[in-house]
C-alpha cells in the first residue's frame, strides 16, 4: 500500500513541509542532516504529532485529513524510536511479549523465535530496561517492533548505537523484511552505508523540505548530494545482474550490461538483479589498463563531467561506463598529472573489496525506480 504524505508541521522555530509519496514496497531511506526534520516527519506519519496538518493516505485509508485523525494504534505502524523507549516496568521478554500479544497474527508462531534468534535476544530476556546496555536496549526495541507485525515500519536511526558487527548481522535481516512480510519500511539514518545496503529509494530532508527523492542510484549519483552528507561518503550505485559464481574463491560475477565485475560472493542465483554501491573515494582512474595489480575490476568508460572542489585537494569525476554512471574522487594533483579532460576515455579501477559486502537484491516487486 502506497503512503502519500502532504504535510505541514509547524513547531516553534521549525516548520516541516513535505509532499511525498512513499512506495508500497521495499525500503525508503529518510536521509539528511541532524535537525532536518526526519523524526518529525516519522512522528507525523505515526500519528504522534497532533500539530501535523494536511493529508496522509495509506493505501485506501486516510490517516490524516481535514476532518480526520486516525490514532496510532489503528494505523498499525511500527515505530523504532531513536531512544529505545522500552517499558521500564517489564523485562526484555515482557517487552517482546507485549508486542507479540497484540500483533495481527496471520502466520504461524515461529516468527517470535525467528526475531529473537536473529537479534540474539534470548540472553537478555530476564533483564529490565535499566539493566541493558545502550545497544542491547535498541536490539530489544527493534525486536519488539518487529513482533508487533506492523503494516508499515518506521525506524528512526535504529542501528546508531550498535557496533559494526551487530549492525552487519541485523542489516540483511531488516533488508529482507519488506519482501518477507510485504511491509514497506521508512528508515531514518545518517549512515550512507546503511542507505546503500538497505534502501530502494531515498528521500533527503533538509531544513524541513525534501531536497531530493528518488531511486538510490540516481539520487546518490547527483553531484549536489554531498552537501547533505559530506563528501567523504559520496558515491554511485551500479545496477546489474548476477552472471556467475566462483565458489572456491567466493566471488560473484556481476554483469553490468556488457561489462562484468567481480564482487565478494553473494549467494544469489544467476540472473538476479543486484545493486552495488561504489564510493567515489574507492574508484581510481587509469589511462590504460595496468598490469600486475591486485585491483581486478577495470571498467572502460568516458569522463562525462569533472568538478574540482575549491579549498580541497580533490576533484569529483563523473564517468559513464556500461551505460551507467560512476563517480571517482581523485586528487587535483592526479587530474593535472594525467591531464584529464571531459570526454576523455579512461579506465575506472574498482577494488572488488570496495563493494558493500551486503549488496542486496532489489525487492522483486519493486518497480519504483
Amino acid at each position: 500500500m502506497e503512503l502519500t504524505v502532504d504535510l505541514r508541521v509547524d513547531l516553534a522555530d521549525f516548520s516541516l513541509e513535505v509532499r511525498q509519496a512513499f512506495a508500497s514496497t521495499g525500503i525508503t531511506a529518510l536521509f539528511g542532516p541532524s535537525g532536518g526534520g526526519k523524526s518529525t516527519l516519522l512522528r507525523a506519519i505515526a500519528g504522534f504529532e497532533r500539530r501535523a496538518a494536511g493529508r496522509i493516505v495509506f493505501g485506501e485509508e486516510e490517516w490524516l485529513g481535514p476532518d480526520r485523525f486516525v490514532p496510532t494504534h489503528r494505523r498499525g505502524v511500527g515505530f523504532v524510536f531513536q531512544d529505545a523507549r522500552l517499558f521500564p516496568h517489564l523485562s526484555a521478554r515482557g517487552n517482546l511479549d507485549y508486542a507479540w500479544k497484540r500483533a495481527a497474527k496471520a502466520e504461524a508462531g515461529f516468527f517470535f523465535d525467528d526475531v529473537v534468534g536473529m537479534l540474539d535476544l534470548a540472553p537478555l530476556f530476564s533483564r529490565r530496561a535499566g539493566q541493558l546496555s545502550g545497544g542491547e536496549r535498541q536490539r530489544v526495541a527493534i525486536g519488539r517492533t518487529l513482533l508487533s507485525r506492523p503494516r508499515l515500519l518506521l525506524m528512526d536511526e535504529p542501528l546508531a548505537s550498535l557496533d559494526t558487527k551487530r549492525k552487519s548481522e541485523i542489516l540483511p535481516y531488516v533488508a529482507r523484511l519488506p519482501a518477507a512480510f510485504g511491509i514497506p519500511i521508512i528508515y531514518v539514518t545518517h549512515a550512507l552505508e546503511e542507505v546503500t545496503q538497505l534502501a530502494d529509494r531515498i528521500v533527503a530532508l533538509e531544513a524541513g523540505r525534501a531536497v531530493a527523492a528518488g531511486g538510490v542510484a540516481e539520487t546518490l549519483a547527483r553531484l549536489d548530494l554531498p552537501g547533505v552528507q559530506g563528501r567523504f561518503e559520496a558515491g554511485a550505485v551500479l545496477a546489474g545482474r548476477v552472471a556467475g559464481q566462483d565458489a572456491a574463491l567466493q566471488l560473484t560475477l556481476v554483469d553490468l550490461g556488457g561489462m562484468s565485475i567481480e564482487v565478494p560472493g553473494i549467494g544469489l542465483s544467476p540472473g538476479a538483479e543486484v545493486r552495488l554501491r561504489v564510493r567515489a573515494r574507492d574508484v581510481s582512474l587509469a589511462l590504460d589498463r595496468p598490469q600486475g595489480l591486485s585491483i581486478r575490476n577495470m571498467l572502460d568508460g568516458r569522463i562525462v563531467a569533472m568538478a574540482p572542489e575549491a579549498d580541497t585537494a580533490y576533484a569529483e569525476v563523473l564517468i559513464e561506463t556500461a551505460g551507467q554512471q560512476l563517480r571517482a574522487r581523485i586528487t587535483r594533483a592526479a587530474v593535472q598529472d594525467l591531464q584529464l579532460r571531459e570526454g576523455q576515455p579512461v579506465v575506472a579501477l574498482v577494488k572488488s573489496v570496495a563493494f558493500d559486502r551486503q549488496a542486496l537484491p532489489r525487492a522483486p516487486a519493486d518497480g519504483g525506480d
Partner: protein
Amino acid sequence: MADMEIPDLGPLWLTIRLAAVTTVVLLVLGTPLAWWLAHTRSRMKSIIEAVTALPLVLPPTVLGFYLLVLFSPNSTLGGLWLSATGSTLTFTFTGLIVASAIYSLPFMVQPLQGAFEAVGRGPLEAAASLRAGPLDAFLTVATPLALRGYITAIVLTFAHTIGEFGVVLMVGGNIPGRTKVVSIQIYEHVETIDYASAHVLAAILLVFSFSVLMAVYTLNRRFPVHAG
C-alpha cells in the same frame, strides 16, 4: 480506667467497608479526572485543579454541614435522589460514601495527576505503536508506571477516610450499625471519658492500619517500578 473488655467491633467493620468503598469509588472517578488534568491543555485546567483541592480547606464538620444541607431531602439534589432511589442521602451509608468521596477527592486526584505527568507521553506513544489502544495502553503501561502515584493516592485516601469523622458524623448521623464508624466511636469514647475503650480501639485501628500499609509498601518494594 476500669474495664478493658473488647469494645464493639461493628463500627470497625463499617469503617473498613466505608474506606474500601470510598477508595474504590475515588479510584474509578479520580483516575479519569487526574488523567484529564495531566494531559489537557484546556484553560479550565487550573480552575478544576483548584476546585479539586477546595474540599480540604473547610473544617470537616463544616463541610459536613454543607453536604448535609445539600443532601437533605429539602434540597434539589437530595430531593431528586430521594425520588430516584427511594432513600435519602443523609444518614445512610450511601450518603457517607458520597461525602467521604467528595472530601477525599484531592487525596486521590493530586498524586495521580503528578504520577501521570511524570510518566509523560513517551511510553504511551510506544504502546500505541505496538497496537495498544488508549485503554489498553492506559492499563498496561500508564498504570504500572504510575504505580507509586496510585499507592500514595490509595494510602492517603484510605487512611484519611478511616480517620475522618467530622464529615461522616454530620452527614451520617452516627447511627449504630448504619453510619457509626470507628472514628466516631473512638471520638465518643474520648468525649465521654471512656479512655480505656478509646485506647483499645485506637490500638486495634493502628495495628490494623499499620499491617495494611506495611503490606502495601512491602509489595511495592518486591515488585518495584523505577523510572530511572
